[in-house]
Every structure is written in C-alpha cells, then in structure tokens.
C-alpha cells in the first residue's frame, strides 16, 4: 500500500511539475491485483493501485507524456487513447499500430493534444479492459469558464474469468440467462415461463424461426460500478448548483440507462465533441460512448441519485450528488421479455435475415425494444387491452418511437446537433457499405459475413472522404468505434451533423457516417462490445503510402499476430455419468470450423461402446449448414444370431464398426438438427435431434431418433454452471440417471 501511495504521489508530482512546460507527464504502473466485489477474491489489473485507472487531466494544447510500466508477472499489455487524434504509432492497438508492452517493459507515449473534451483510455489487449484497465482522459478547453464538474466511468464486474465468459458465449451456454432469472422471473424465457406469461405461441414461433431466448445483453454481471464502486457519494455539491458530469461508459459489453432524480439531463457533448444542449428525461449510453451531461440539484441537504441501470435491468449503480437525505430516482421495471420475443418474431424472416417492414429505421429513433419497456408501453399484460388496440391505430412510423409513445423524453441521435458546421472538405467520396452480421447460436460476429482475419485491410487515400453506410442485419445492437478519426453522423441536421467516434446501431437500422481521410497509417474500426470485437467484428482502414511505423518494423509478422485475435479456438466438454453408461461430447471450434467428438460408453459389452468424431465447416451465413467428414467406431456384443437392420433394409453393424463417413447437418425450424450421412461401407443414416429444449428455467429436454432405429430422450436439470442432474432413456442402454458435468 505504501508503495502504491508513493507511486501515485510520484505520478501526481510529475504531472504538476511538468505542467509549466505544457508537457504533462503521467507514470502508469500496471500490476496484477486481487479484488473482492462479491465476497469472492478474484484476479484483476490495477494501475497505480487503482481500479479504474486514474483520471488523466490535461488542457488542450498540452503535450501528453505518458510512461506505461508493465509490472505484470506474465502478461503483455497496451493502452489505447480512445477518441484521440494522434500519430498512428501511439494509438495503442498491439501489433496493428503499436508494439505490445511486454511484462517488465516501460513504454513511452508522447503526443500533442489537439482537441478538448471527455475521452477515456483502456487496454486493447485480451480481456484486460474488463478487469480493471479503463480510465477517464479529460482535456479541458483552454479558456474554460469555471464550472462544477464530476467525472464518472461506468463499468461492470463478473466473478467469472472473462476468458470463460467468452468461451461460454461461443458454446451457446444459457447459464447467464439462468443467473438473470434469479433476479428477474422469466429471464430464461423457457416454455413454462412462456405459458405463465400467456405467450406459448410466441415461444413456439420464436423457436420455429430458429432463435434461442432473446436478450438485450449476453452476459450476466455480478455488479455494475461507478468509479469502481456499486454506489458512490459526491457530497461536495449544493442545492441550486449545476454540475457538468463527464460520463464515460468504460464497460466491456453493457449499455446503461441514465436518469437523475433532481432534474432533467441536459446533454452538452458526446464522445468529446460539443453539441447544442438538449434536455432529456433519460438516455442510453452505449458501450464506449461518452457524454457530458449537466444536471441541477434542486434543493439543499439532499443527495440526488444519478442512476445508471444496465440495459438488461438486472442491476444498477448509483452516484449520489449532494449531501443529506437521499432522493431516489424512479427505478426501471423489469423487461417484458416475451413482448420482445414477439417483436423479434415479427421482424425475423424464416431465412434468418431481418425485415424492417418498410420502416427505414435509423439513429435510435425507432427503438423496437420499447415493447419491452413497461414505462413506455405499459405494464406487462396480455394482448387485447384497449391500449394495444389503440397501438394498432398508430401508423407503423411511430409505433416504436419512444418519444411519441410516452411523455418521457429519451435521447436519440437525431436530436444531436453540432454547434458549428461540420461539413467535410471538398473531395471525392469513397463509399462503403457494411452489413453487420452474426448469429447468437455460435456467437459469430462479422461485417459482410467476414471477420477481420477473413478480409484484407481497406485501403483509403489521404485527402479523400469516406462514407460508410452501415446496415445492422444482426439481432443485437453494436457500438461501432473508429480509431483516430471523428465521423459525422448524417442525421438530418444538415451542415450541423454531430461528430462522434462511437455509433450505436440497433438491429435493422441503417446509418450513414462520413469522415475525412486526414491521417496516416492503420486504423481499427470495430464493434466495442469486447466479445464481439474478439470474435472478429471489425475492419482495418489503411492509408495508401503510409510512412513506415517504427513501432512495428516487421509489418507482415505483426499483421499476422494481430489477426490471431479473432481466430481463437473455443473448447467445451460435457459428460453424463449415468447408471446406464457414460454419454458425452467435446468440441473445439472457431468462427467456421468445428471438431466434435461424441461418445456413449456402456458398462458392459451388451450395452456396447461407441464414438463418433466429426470435423466440418459451417458454410452459410446463418451457420445452419454443416458438412462434415467423420470417423465412427463402435462395438457391442449381440445375442447369438441377433441381426438388426436399419429402415433402409441395410444390415446394421453396431456390433463392430469402424468406418469413415461423410455427412451434412442442417438446423431445421424449431432448432431441430437433421443429420444425414453415408459411410465407406455404403451404410446410410438419417437422424433428427434437438438439444436443450428449455422446459422451465432450469429443466432441459433432449431427444434423438435415427434410421438405425436408435432413439434417446432425456431430461437435464441445471444445478450450477458445471453440474446438472440428468435422466434419459436410450434404445441400446435403457433407462439411466446420473449427473452431467460440463465445461
């Protein structure tokens, strides 16, 4: 602790001393640390002994001189200065723009600050951002009238290691939904919950369209944090004072609803750039966005709640402004999940693409999620109410427009207006169309159905303008971030289009961004949801004839290393230790490929032993089509003279088989997996299978039937993230019960 204090002191001292020369120096010491947010002690990363990282404060025109000392035992690290215009080599994306900082090394960043506003900085290595490496980066204007201000950075905490979170997401594990259902009934969206809510038809249609439970966010979090605390006090403010809040969403995956108990929220800047002040009742802040928000404390001796609620509404975090009795903000009521599911059903075509029903959605104005918000569309109720009959009379055009449906004013991008003209220089436009694509089942996130590693850099010329037309054809919203540039959002404000560097784009929206090609080098454009980025949702813009980057002398090797990020291989395994045998599977998979092994091992020769191994590649956009090649081995002792035939009349070789097979799996409506294959002995097999039908929040039903006249059906009850109780009937092995372990 003493050491930490000393380092902090040193950092502050050096910052102060250097200010006179307009070079502001910070020393940042990255260390491994242990934290305890929930009663369990976990590993995390601290900088100068703190989570989040210290707030770095500058004045426009200063030169930032930042030394990053990597004192981690093993890991590399990096720091990216989010939203800053700076030379490419200091952008801090390891292997793309900047050398990684190896354990024990010190790295120097030195760049002039050519802008002002609220920014932030974070690690761009692995999952470090989520486990502590995020902090505020505030640049004051040179002549700034004095004003009360407060900086807060929002984040989330999970006791599960982020690497495991990522792995589970790729395995379509629904453990996160089960955890959410402990806080909110109905979150698993199982059949039992659907029946209780009067939405059985909705659930059936949803699965018919090959969707699993819908959600507004993928991960369950144990805590949400403001400046590293679930609740934090700022008693220094008095009644009547207006406070400028610098609000930064430093979370890895969470969007937050912001509300204030004392006054409206007056938005004065976004992503560091000023906007014409706009008062609202509430707003959502996307992952990686920043906003300056002015609030006024109406009275003395009262602490007013600034409430940030996670988009999934499981939990929230609060800042109390003022000193005294605590004035609560109105909490957000739980989402009406089945209303959301019904809405998704309407929008989803059977081929897996989305249909906006001619609404031309853009700029967060039509929020389909309003159907789930009780405060906008009324408390959860079944169809047939007067209000819903009324809703039918509304034109499609404002049916989902939050601000016409209620008297609560919610911020959207169309309301942002720059105070000055933001027109681009006269230059030819390069126009690019990006379709944001992906699927939840395998957690594949792409642009134009390609990951970063499946594409080349996009070359742009210095001096030209770039227009990006984004269409979100995936089921999740994405906060798209461009490094090293500001883009203007074409939002109907004409020459006064607002400037941002993060754009939240909701499903089915089309948004147009424009930026001037003024820089040099390689710049990352990616979804800022950490797990989407790591799954490959991005592109790299590269300026033609860039000056060589001294940080990365071996360009090709660095590029290959950079591309490794989305090529990660995810492992899962599961085994049912049952009274009638062992039943299990293991999988290794990446974006397109899957290696899968299944086994059924009886306890005696009569029950038999069998295993199948498949290696295949998902070839279509929705990843429903999976051709594979496999190897099949089985042995089972049969009665003397016993002979089984399959339904095609071919003699079965269950007693002794070792054959190579070729097959094709296809996910049918209602998530039935059809599997047809032929082996080198000419034997055909057709199989239908459905895994993990969510009967209730923790009960799963599985079944399988095939043309070898084999069948299996069973239940599994999830008791915790690794363990389930299970029972099943197998045509070869009979009834059994046991426990299933999964990883």
């Amino acid at each position: 602790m003493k050491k930490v204090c000393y380092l902090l002191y040193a950092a502050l001292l050096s910052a102060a001393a250097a200010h006179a020369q307009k070079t502001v120096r910070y020393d940042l010491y990255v260390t491994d640390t242990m934290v305890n947010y929930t009663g369990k002690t976990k590993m995390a990363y601290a900088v100068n002994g703190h989570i989040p990282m210290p707030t770095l404060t500058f004045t426009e025109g200063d030169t930032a001189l930042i030394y990053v000392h990597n004192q981690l035992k093993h890991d590399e690290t990096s720091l990216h200065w989010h939203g800053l215009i700076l030379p490419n080599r200091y952008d801090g994306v390891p292997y793309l723009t900047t050398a990684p900082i190896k354990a024990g090394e010190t790295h120097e960043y030195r760049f002039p600050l050519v802008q002002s506003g609220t920014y932030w900085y974070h690690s761009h290595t692995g999952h470090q951002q989520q486990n502590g490496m995020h902090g505020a980066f505030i640049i004051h204007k040179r002549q700034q009238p004095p004003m009360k201000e407060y900086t807060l950075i929002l984040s989330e905490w999970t006791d599960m290691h982020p690497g495991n979170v990522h792995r589970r997401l790729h395995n379509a594990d629904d453990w996160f939904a089960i955890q959410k259902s402990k806080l909110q009934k109905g979150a698993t969206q199982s059949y039992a919950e659907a029946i209780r809510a009067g939405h059985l038809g909705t659930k059936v249609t949803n699965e018919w369209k090959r969707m699993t439970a819908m959600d507004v966010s993928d991960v369950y979090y144990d805590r949400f944090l403001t400046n590293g605390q679930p609740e934090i006090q700022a008693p220094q403010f008095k009644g009547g004072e207006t406070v400028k809040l610098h609000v930064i969403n430093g979370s890895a995956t969470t969007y937050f609803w912001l509300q204030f108990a004392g006054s409206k929220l007056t938005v004065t800047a976004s992503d560091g750039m000023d906007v014409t002040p706009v008062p609202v009742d509430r707003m959502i802040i996307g992952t990686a966005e920043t906003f300056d928000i002015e609030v006024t404390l109406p009275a003395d001796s009262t602490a007013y709640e600034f409430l940030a609620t996670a988009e999934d509404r499981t939990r929230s975090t609060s800042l109390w402004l003022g000193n005294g009795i605590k004035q609560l903000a109105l909490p957000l009521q739980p989402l009406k999940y089945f209303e959301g599911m019904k809405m998704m059903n309407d929008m989803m075509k059977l081929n897996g693409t989305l249909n906006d029903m001619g609404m031309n959605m853009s700029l967060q104005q039509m929020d389909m999620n309003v159907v789930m918000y009780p405060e906008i569309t009324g408390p959860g109720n079944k169809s047939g109410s007067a209000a819903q009959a009324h809703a039918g009379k509304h034109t499609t055009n404002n049916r989902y427009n939050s601000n016409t449906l209620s008297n609560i004013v919610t911020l959207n991008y169309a309301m942002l207006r720059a105070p000055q003209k933001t027109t681009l220089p006269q230059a030819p436009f390069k126009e690019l169309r990006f379709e944001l694509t992906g699927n939840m089942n395998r957690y594949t996130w792409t642009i134009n159905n390609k990951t970063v590693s499946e594409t080349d850099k996009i070359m742009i010329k210095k001096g030209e303008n770039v227009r990006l037309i984004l269409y979100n054809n995936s089921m999740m919203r994405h906060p798209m971030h461009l490094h090293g540039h500001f883009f203007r959002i074409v939002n109907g404000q004409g020459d006064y289009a607002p400037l941002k560097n993060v754009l939240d784009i909701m499903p089915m929206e089309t948004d147009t961004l424009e930026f001037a090609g003024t820089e040099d080098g390689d710049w990352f454009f990616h979804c800022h949801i950490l797990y989407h980025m790591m799954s490959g949702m991005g592109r790299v813009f590269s300026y033609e004839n860039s000056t060589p980057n001294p940080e990365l002398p071996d360009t090709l090797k660095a590029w290959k290393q950079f591309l490794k990020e989305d090529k990660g291989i995810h492992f899962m395994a599961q085994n049912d230790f049952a009274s009638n045998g062992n039943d299990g599977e293991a999988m290794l998979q990446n974006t397109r490929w899957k290696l899968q092994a299944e086994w059924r091992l009886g306890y005696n020769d009569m029950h038999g032993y069998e295993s199948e191994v498949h290696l295949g590649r998902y070839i279509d956009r929705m990843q429903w089509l999976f051709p594979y090649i496999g190897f099949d081995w089985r042995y089972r002792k049969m009665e003397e003279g016993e002979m089984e035939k399959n339904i095609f009349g071919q003699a079965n070789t269950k007693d002794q088989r070792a054959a190579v097979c070729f097959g094709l799996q296809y996910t049918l409506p209602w998530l039935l997996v059809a599997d047809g294959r032929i082996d080198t002995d000419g034997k055909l097999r057709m199989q239908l299978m459905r895994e993990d039908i969510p009967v209730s929040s923790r009960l799963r039903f599985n079944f399988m039937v095939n043309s070898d006249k084999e069948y299996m059906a069973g239940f599994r009850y999830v008791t915790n993230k690794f363990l389930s109780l299970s029972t099943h009937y197998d045509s070869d092995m009979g009834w059994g019960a046991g426990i299933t372990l999964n990883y």
Partner: protein
Amino acid sequence: MKAILFALSIALGSAASAQIKHAATATVLVHGNNEQCKPTIEAAAAQNQYASASWNSANHLAVITWDSTRTTLSAVLKNIALAGYDNDQYLAPDAVYAQLPACCQYTRTAKKAPLTNGASAHTSATASSSSHSPAAENTAAHALAPVINAYLLVKDALVNSAASEAATQAKQLTAALAAVDMKALAHEQHMVWMKEKNSLTEIASAIAAINSLEKQRVQFAALSAHLYPVVKAGGAGRQLYYQHCPMFEEGADWLSQEKTVRNPYYGNQMLTCGKTTETIP
C-alpha cells in the same frame, strides 16, 4: 430432566430460527398517514427475506428488524422509499409518491422545497411531473383563469395516470368553480356559464370522490364536454386547443394549453394518440 431441558432448548432454538437470525433492530421515522398505509410499508420491508418492519400509524415510527449478516438498514429503508414512503434515509421517487392512494399521500415534510433561483430552465424535475404547470403562467386577467388552471391540472394528473392527484386537483376545481365572479363575464359567456355551472360542479366533486382512474376519465370526458361551450362562448383569456381522442368511449374530447397531444384518457399507454380539432383564441 436434562433431556427435557435439552429438548426444550432445541425447541426454542428452532422457534427462534423461524424468525430473523443475527437480528438487529432500529426504530425509524417513516412518513405515512394512517392505518391504510401500514400494510404497504410493512410489505415493502418484507420484500427482503432477511427483514421485517412494524409501523405505528400513531407516531409514524417503524421498528425494523434485519439480519445484520445478510442485509443493511439502508437496504430496507430504500425498499420502503421505493414503495412511496419517505423515511430517515431516503425520499421516495416523485412518481411513486404520486401513485399512492389519496389517503396515504402524507405531507412530504422530509423533502426540501426546490430553491427558486432561476435555475429552473432545466429543472422541471422527473418524468412524471415534467408537464408544464399552467398555474405558473400569468393568466390572471380572465375571470375563468382559476377554473381553467384547475381543470388543466386535473387533465395533467390524468395524463400522468395519477388518480389521487386528479382527485386532489378536482377538489381545487370545485373551489375554483364556486369562486368565479360571474359579473366579470361577458353577457354571452355569462349565459352559458349559468347553464353549465351546476353540471361542472357536480362532475368535479364526483372526480374528487373517486379513486379509480378509469371512472375519473369517464367523468373527465363529461367535464370537458360541459366546459367547452363555456370557453367557446367567450374565451378563457388565453389560447386553448380542443383535442379529440377517437378511441375512448367511442370518442372523447379535452382542452389543452399545448398543441402537442398528451392524451388524458390513456396516459402513457397511448400518450400522443388524438388530434387537435379546434383552436380557441
């Protein structure tokens, strides 16, 4: 004997465990009015399975018991405030307070009045109370101004689906109706006023006496229908909009100060449904 004692101690032990373990107790002021507020306050505390409360309507003190290893007094008091009842540590959200039944709308002595130092530009407060307050505007010239003000407050309460607030404002309306100086009205308006006054008073008192939002809205449709000819006959000293909802009771109208539609018949469920049919100068 020993065995009996032992058995007894087990019995006592299990009886105690049915209650709250590691119990801590505090007596806290929880604002409320009468016996009718008691169940809500105690249920709010008991949302937390490790806590309970017993509220005394005579002195407004709640005895709160909680398991000190599982939860905190603050957490229990927060739940009570979220149910609408101000207490030592927390003030209820304004919207929740507004939804309390009229009999439980205690005087909020714990809540500090807003300072009025011109900072009100952005401070029209939370969502539910963000509608403009007609009373604040200078419209005192016309003899009907207090009636229109009170009427608009009833309307705003219905827009916000706040039944008890609507009842309170309707009571004010009754008073305002009685206080109108008829002599100050022009002849034509005076005649219409004589015709409508009794109906208006009757309906306003009816709204003041009802707690059901739905029934209040039915009455409000009638109230609007009777007030319309009065303002039509000689104005109200300010511009008003006559607005129409095609759905409610096969069509209902209301008067508003704003052109933007804020439907008092459905509130948040269908706020902007309806249209302006007439502008009354």
